[in-house]
Structure formats: structure tokens, C-alpha cells
């Protein structure tokens, strides 16, 4: 129940909802992601603002019917601007007993439960763990028959049976027909919440064009679900979530990984450079490899490398040759790429390393979100090896973050790490398409002429002669006559780039590399503070916590609590105004999907205490959790701290 607006004065308030959070939950094979996606698309084109949270297991097909195999898709649709997929669903669609077992606790009290009662047989209940006790005497307990669902509005629908029945006249075998039951659920929910029917029917026709029988079954099931709502009194009346009044413009519904991919395509165009992507498949980053591989007409080459190390090697080799070299991965991959990233720092070439973070350590929670690679990004290399780190904060922002990462990489000839996470990667939101003409020109010239004159008057090329302002070294690419030069991991002499092991030179070069990255700070826009600028408490955020923080701050302010917020996208170097900004507040709270990595970093950097709010459950923050942290911070202010902020 985030960002709720009070609409009690609406005339037909019992039928119009300002927002609705639906969670579709079922077995991994039940097509819940597809169903949720479809509900989202229809709502997007209807004009709602929305935010989604796909939540699925790492196993492609965990044992059917078990809690481990439950795959869910949560979507928040609203008639006003929202940022989060909602804390607690208003509606839970449970396609089987395991889904009910796994997700009932998420449903808001009094919420609507739509249950496929065909999947509550004894065997289903056992597999879902609805049993009295373990061992030989265990007996199934049916939650549909005890009191455990009191307090919810329960709709029991024999979805499998009804789907089979409606498919029978089409000559579809019951086993095949059963697979369409998710469309029955979608049809029913579409009726209950007044979603348009035609786009989905049209979409089914296109999506399953190759298999007419499946298309027919899905359409029939969808229509049957819709009609079930219309004709069965048990369902009651329909609700509506009206279109949101979003700023005028052309919109598309976009996930973070798609936005990031398109941002990379745009970065290549804006830099006037071809792109070479080196990548090794890894969840949740693989979709970027897939997406970029579809757009070769932009001069994009994608290499699915033999491993993570080769992937970053390909990117670095391409950058040396004059392309925008990119590698995409998740935390374990960044660890493997670490040595090559250090080489990129030493040879001072532009390169993008995209880390779609997931729960760690090790394989951890591959399909769940976490923001625990910040330390890895900031510090995870041998030697003194600083580099710029950027973090995207919403699915759509991934587009702009990719361009910004490329801009910095090219201008300063440095590898840049761009952090996203599993929640942003797979979550979606409506995105007002930017005016392509307004995107920045991030092109940099290659060096084509000698840049130095020797004592005897001959011209030569010094690969480490720096731009005095940016400290970037010249980028002279193979094919350029007269500028042949060698780069490598051995320490280079400032200027000539020849191997140089002298103590003073190494210290000097170490300082120069750090100064170059530090100089990026002058290129960062001022940190924006919103909410009550004169509050005592500031909520600072980075990455995907933006949505929950935004919702929480809005709600606390509506409740009369004074609170400010700021969100940073540049994590290295930090915005130059950040230290002063933080010092203006009595309390700074910093929610992170890790154990307080940025809080720790900021304490060390600014010698300021920061209240870390930590969550590592593989799930994004609920805004309520952040509201609680705000309330605690405000309550704990001492009297002399209260109102002391100027």
C-alpha cells in the first residue's frame, strides 16, 4: 500500500481504485511471468503508471508443485505516478497450493485471493508442505477447508477444469488444454479490474502464430476467464484503475535490461563509434547480450566469449582497436574480470563493465536482487586502481546511466563500472521516450598526428602525454600511420609510455591515475535534494532503492513528518557537494540492499555518522520498511538536534 492517495471523496469510490497491486503466483511451468507481463502491457497501454517485480526461482523447472518451484510476478498499476511494485499485494492469484503457501503472507489483510481450487488435491497439498507433521503420520491439511483464509476475500475457481471444458470443443487434448489455465486467470483478473480485452486477444494471435491450436486454446481460456467474471455472481462487481495523468509524450513500457541495452546502442551512436560487446551468459545480465545481438545494424558486434575473462578481454582488445568495448555480467563475472579491468586502468583505455547485481556470495541467489557488489566495484582490484562507478536507479534510468558511463569512459580513457541489479533488470515501468536530438554528443577524437617533438626536431608520438584538463592520454588506434606504440601492464613512464620501474615514476603514475579519476568529480551535476530541505533527517540512496525511498518519503511527508531525500548515481568519484550536503542534516539514513557498504564508505570518506538500513533478502525494500527507519530516526533525535538544521 505505497503512495496511496486519499480518494474518499470520489463519487463512485467503491468501484474506482487509485492503485492496485496484483501478484500472480504459480508453478514455474504455469506461465506466470508471461501472464504478469501481459497484464502489465495492457495496463501500460491503458495509461496507468506502473511498476513490476518479477520474482522467480533459479531453477528452470524446480520440482513441480513445490514451494521452491513457485514463480511470481507482482505489478502495481495506478492512476497517479508511482515508483514501486507495491509492498503488499491487494490481489493474490494462486495457481496451486504451493503458490498459496509461498505467498499468502504477502497479501494485505482483507485482500482478494483468487485460487485455482483444482490444484488442492491431497498430492498437491503434500508437495506444497501443507501437512500436519513430517514423518509417516503426516496428513495433508487443506487451507481451503480450515480457517486460515478467514480475513481474506476468497474466490475459489476450478480454473483447470473450466479451461479443459472450454478447450474440448476445439479438439484440444485435456493435457494440452491444461497449459492454458494461466490465460483463464488473466481473463478473470482482466474482467475484475476492467482491463481491455482486445489487445490481449490480438497479442495471443501474434505470439502463438506458429501454433494455431495453442493460440486457440489460450484465447478460449482467456475469454472463458473473462466471462466467468461477468456471469458468476460470486465475483461481485468490477473495479477500475483509471489512467494516470502522466506528462504528455510518447511512452513505452521498459525493463531495466532493455533500457540499458538501448542506452548502450545510443552511446555508440552518440560517440560515433562501433560497439564490440564481449559477454558470457550469466543471470540476470544475459538479456543485454540477447538484446544487443539483435541490433547489429547499429554496427554492433557481439562475441559470446568462452568465459568471463575472455569476455572482458574481447572488450579491451576492441577498445584498443578503436571501438567502444563493453562487457556485461553479474558479480561473479566481475570478480573474474578483475585482472583485466586493472590492465584497462594501467593502459588507460575506455571500457564499460556492466554489473547486474544479484544475491551473493558465490552463486548465491542468481535470480534475486541485491546491491552487494558496491565494494567490489569500488575496491575489487589489485594494486592502486581507482575507476569511476555509476549506478542506475530505475528501469528507465538504465538508459541514461549507460550513456553517462560511456561518456566518462571515453572522455577520461578509463574503464567505468555501471551497476544495475536484478530488480531493475527485470522490473518494468512506463518510460517517456527521450527526444533523441537532445541526447549529449559524447564523441571524442582519435589522435592522428604526432604530439611531441624530440630535441633533434623530429616529431614523434608519446602515448602517455596527457590532456592537461582531463588527464586523459591520447587514443591513437591501429591503422594510424606514424603513431605505432605499445601499451601493457608494466609500469609506464609518464609521457613516453616506455617501461619505467623507477620509484618516483611509479608513485607519480599512481597519483596521476588517481587524479584522473578524481577529476571526473568536476563533471558531475550537483546533488539534488527534494522533500523538506530544512528537515533534520535526510534519506540518502543509491541504485534501485530509489523507488522505495521515494514512496516512503512521500508518505511520511503526507503524514506530517519532515524529511528530505537525495539519490546519487555517481559512486566514484562521489559528487563534490556530497560531504557538505550530508553535514547539513542531523541524521542521514542510508537504505541499501547490502550490509551497509556505501554507509561504510561515506563514514570513511567524510567522517560523518550514517545510519545504515540494511536488507539482504533478495528482494527490494518495501517502502514501509524505509518509513519505519525514517520514523525511528526522527524519534531518536535529541531535543537539541531537533530543528537545529539550518
Amino acid at each position, binding site marked *: 500500500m505505497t503512495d496511496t492517495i486519499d480518494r474518499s471523496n470520489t463519487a463512485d469510490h467503491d468501484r474506482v481504485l487509485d492503485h492496485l497491486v496484483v501478484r500472480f503466483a504459480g508453478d514455474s511451468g504455469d506461465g506466470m511471468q508471461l501472464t504478469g507481463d501481459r497484464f502489465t502491457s495492457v495496463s501500460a497501454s491503458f495509461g496507468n503508471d506502473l511498476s513490476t517485480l518479477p520474482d522467480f526461482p533459479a531453477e528452470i523447472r524446480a520440482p513441480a508443485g513445490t514451494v521452491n518451484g513457485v514463480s511470481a510476478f507482482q505489478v502495481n498499476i495506478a492512476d497517479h505516478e508511482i515508483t514501486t511494485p507495491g509492498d503488499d499485494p491487494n490481489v493474490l492469484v494462486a495457481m496451486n497450493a504451493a503458490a498459496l503457501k509461498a505467498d499468502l503472507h504477502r497479501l494485505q489483510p482483507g485482500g482478494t485471493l483468487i485460487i485455482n481450487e483444482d490444484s488442492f488435491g491431497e498430492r498437491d497439498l503434500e508437495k506444497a508442505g501443507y501437512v500436519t507433521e513430517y514423518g509417516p503420520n503426516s496428513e495433508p491439511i487443506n487451507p481451503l477447508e480450515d480457517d486460515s483464509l478467514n480475513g481474506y476475500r476468497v474466490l475459489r475457481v476450478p480454473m483447470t477444469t473450466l479451461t479443459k471444458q472450454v478447450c474440448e470443443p476445439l479438439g484440444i487434448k485435456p493435457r494440452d488444454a491444461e497449459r492454458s489455465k494461466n490465460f483463464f486467470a488473466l481473463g478473470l483478473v482482466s474482467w475484475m479490474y476492467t482491463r481491455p480485452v482486445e489487445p490481449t486477444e490480438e497479442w495471443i494471435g501474434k505470439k502463438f502464430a506458429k501454433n494455431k491450436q495453442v493460440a486457440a486454446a489460450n484465447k478460449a481460456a482467456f475469454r472463458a476467464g473473462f466471462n466467468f467474471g461477468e456471469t458468476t455472481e460470486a465475483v461481485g462487481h468490477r473495479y477500475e484503475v483509471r489512467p494516470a495523468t502522466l506528462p504528455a509524450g510518447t511512452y*513505452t*513500457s521498459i525493463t531495466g535490461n532493455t533500457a540499458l541495452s538501448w542506452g548502450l546502442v545510443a552511446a555508440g551512436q552518440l560517440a560515433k563509434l562501433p560497439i564490440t560487446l564481449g559477454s558470457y551468459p550469466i543471470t540476470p545480465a544475459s538479456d543485454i547480450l540477447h538484446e544487443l545481438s539483435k541490433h547489429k545494424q547499429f554496427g554492433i558486434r557481439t562475441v559470446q566469449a568462452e568465459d568471463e575473462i575472455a569476455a572482458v578481454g574481447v572488450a579491451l582488445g576492441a577498445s584498443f582497436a578503436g571501438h567502444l568495448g563493453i562487457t556485461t555480467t553479474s558479480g561473479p563475472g566481475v570478480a573474474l574480470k578483475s585482472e583485466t579491468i586493472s590492465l584497462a586502468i594501467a593502459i588507460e583505455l575506455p571500457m564499460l563493465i556492466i554489473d547486474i547485481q544479484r544475491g551473493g556470495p558465490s552463486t548465491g541467489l542468481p535470480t534475486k536482487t541485491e546491491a552487494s557488489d558496491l565494494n567490489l566495484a569500488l575496491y575489487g582490484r589489485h594494486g592502486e586502481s581507482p575507476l569511476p562507478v555509476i549506478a542506475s536507479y530505475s528501469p528507465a534510468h538504465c538508459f541514461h546511466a549507460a550513456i553517462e558511463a560511456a561518456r566518462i569512459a571515453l572522455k577520461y580513457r578509463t574503464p567505468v563500472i555501471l551497476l544495475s541489479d536484478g530488480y531493475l533488470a527485470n522490473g518494468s515501468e512506463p518510460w517517456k521516450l527521450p527526444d533523441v536530438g537532445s541526447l549529449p554528443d559524447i564523441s571524442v577524437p582519435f589522435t592522428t598526428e604526432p604530439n611531441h617533438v624530440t630535441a633533434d626536431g623530429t616529431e614523434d608520438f608519446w602515448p602517455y602525454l596527457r590532456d592537461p584538463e582531463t588527464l586523459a592520454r591520447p587514443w591513437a588506434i591501429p591503422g594510424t600511420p606514424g603513431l605505432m606504440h*605499445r601499451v601493457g601492464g608494466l609500469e609506464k613512464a609518464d609521457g613516453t609510455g616506455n617501461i619505467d620501474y623507477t620509484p618516483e615514476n611509479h608513485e607519480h603514475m599512481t597519483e596521476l591515475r588517481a587524479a584522473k579519476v578524481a577529476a571526473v568529480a568536476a563533471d558531475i551535476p550537483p546533488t539534488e535534494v527534494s522533500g523538506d530541505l530544512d528537515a533534520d533527517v535526510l534519506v540518502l540512496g543509491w541504485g534501485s532503492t530509489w523507488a522505495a525511498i521515494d514512496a516512503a518519503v512521500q508518505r511520511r511527508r503526507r503524514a506530517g513528518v519532515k524529511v528530505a531525500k537525495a539519490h546519487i548515481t555517481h559512486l566514484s568519484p562521489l559528487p563534490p557537494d556530497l560531504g557538505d550536503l550530508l553535514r547539513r542534516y542531523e541524521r542521514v539514513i542510508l537504505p541499501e540492499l547490502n550490509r551497509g557498504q556505501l554507509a561504510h564508505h561515506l563514514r570513511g570518506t567524510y567522517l560523518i555518522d550514517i545510519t545504515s538500513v540494511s536488507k539482504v533478502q533478495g528482494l527490494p525494500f518495501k517502502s514501509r520498511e524505509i518509513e519505519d527507519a525514517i520514523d525511528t530516526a526522527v524519534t531518536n533525535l535529541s531535543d537539541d538536534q531537533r530543528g537545529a538544521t539550518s
Partner: protein
Amino acid sequence: MSTEQVAVTTKKDWTSSQEVRWCPGCGDYGILLAVQQLMPELGVAPENTVFVSGIGCSSRFPYYMNTYGMHSIHGRAPAIATGVATARPDLDVWVITGDGDGLSIGGNHLIHALRRNVNLNILLFNNRIYGLTKGQYSPTSEVGKVTKSTPMGSVDAPFNPLSVALGAEASFVARTHDLDRKHMQETFKAAHAHQGASFVEIYQNCNVFNDVQFAGATKKASRDEMMIDLAHGEPILFGNENQRGVMQGTDGFLHIVEVADVGLDRILVHDEKNEHPSLAFALARLNSDDHSPTPFGVFRNIERAEYTKSVSDQVLAASEANGPGDLNTLLASNGTWTVN
């Protein structure tokens, strides 16, 4: 490959100003000289040539070539070179690696560059020892080798580099040695002419940590008896009067025979273009140790789809099919709606 007229160059144009820092007497000097002398003959320009190396003694090589170059990371040269070549198929890309760099820490990248058939000229300096780290056994060291890390003798079975390359579906596989500049140059020239990944094993002497390792085959006095020169289309003969040869027996295996015993027409005719790698594989394993006759030259040289060209062809095909990329079209490609 540039189609433009390339200016005539000399060895000097290919030699950088950097002081060469290998140990005196190292086999690497001979290889460097062979390459620097050969380059003007190849009709290519220094600015269109890139040398990429990993880490190890041999990997200092790029610093001494007046071309574009990268002295990269231990084992990773084939991957980085794949990036260079994929981005820029117009360039001549050489990989300089060693037995530790290419077959141990970087074995994975080497086999995949060969499998993909990336247009790289890969020169593997095989001295069967770790030189830069001062003398530990390598993945090509023989069982029982006593080194600092194997005082009781190595218990690791070694790789045969040519077997690895052939097993990785390499389209060009050759062997040469650091004592014969002319043979090196002929071999490198053939490797350069080959479109695709060219793998050349160079027997290279490390006079500090593994001296005379290959002398059994390569020293002048024993060359006639121990070195088998492979020539495409010619019977495989050796010996000071070509009196010995290689024959494929009825058992399918290769045997070293006296020509007089079997007749010249029973001697195997070398076919580097044979699509099937099994004979090349058998030749690569003809010498069981360094004291038996050892084949040198080009074992395999076949044509198959080259990776960087295939990648470029897809980029061109996409542009032809879809027109040049347009950002506005891309951003609208998942369906849009308008808010007024």
C-alpha cells in the same frame, strides 16, 4: 588486409627503439630477428599490424616491434587479440605466447580462438619451462623433470601443443624451431597467408633454465637424422639421402621405415589440405620423445569460415536487411502509447 598499395619497408621500419632485454643466448632473439626480417616481405604496413602478447619471457616481444602492440595479461592474449581482430578485421593481428601462457593459464582462450578460427597468427614459443619465474616445470615439460617446484621430478603428464591445436579444430598448424631462421620465416609466411587462426609451435631454447632441451632433434649434427621436413604434396622422407620415410601401415598407424624396404610408393604423401585432421594428428605424435625423428613444417592448412569475417558479414547483412540503425525506431520498437 589492406588492398591499398603498401609502402616498401625494411627491417628497420619494424624495429622499435626499445632495448631488447632477454638473457644473452636466449632463443627468443632468433625468433625476433626472423620476424623483423620477414615483415617487409609480407607487403603489409607497420601501422596495420598489431602484436598482442600475454606474460612470460616471450611476451616481451611486442615491445621490440615498431607496430601497434599490447603486452597484456598472463594467458589472455588470444582473447584480447580476438577483440582487436573482431573490431578491426582489416588489421594483421599476431599473438605471441609461450607454453605456460598459452597452454596453462591461457589454455582455454587458445583453444577457443582456434575453434572459432579467428584470423590470428599465434606463435607459441615452447621452451618447456617457466623462465620468467625462474625455472618451474611447464605444461609441456616431460614427466620426471626436476625443477625448483619438482625437486623429485614432475608427475604431470605434458601436453603436446600440436595435438591440442588439432584437437581444438585449428585450421592451420605448424612447427618450427629457433635455430633455423629460414624455416621459421617460411612457416610464419604461410601462417600469415592463411585466413583464420594459424598456430605455430616454435621449439625455443631457454639456455638458462632448460638448455639444449630440443638439441636431440635440432642441433646441426643430428638434423638430417632427426628432423622430418613436411612438404605439401611430397612423400615424407628424411635422412641425409632421404633414405627413410613415413608410411601408413595396414594397422592405420604411422611408421618410420627404410625406403629401400618398402619402396617409395608406399611412403605417405603429405597433404596439409586434408579436411580430416587424423593424419596431421598422427604426424604430430610421431616423435615419442626428443630423441626420435620429429616432423617440422605445416601439418595442417585448410580453409574454413573465418570468425571475424563472419561477424562482419552479419553486421553488413543486418544493415542491408534493416537499413542503418535508427535510434527513434529502436526506442519505439516495443510498442508505444501517447499521453496528451
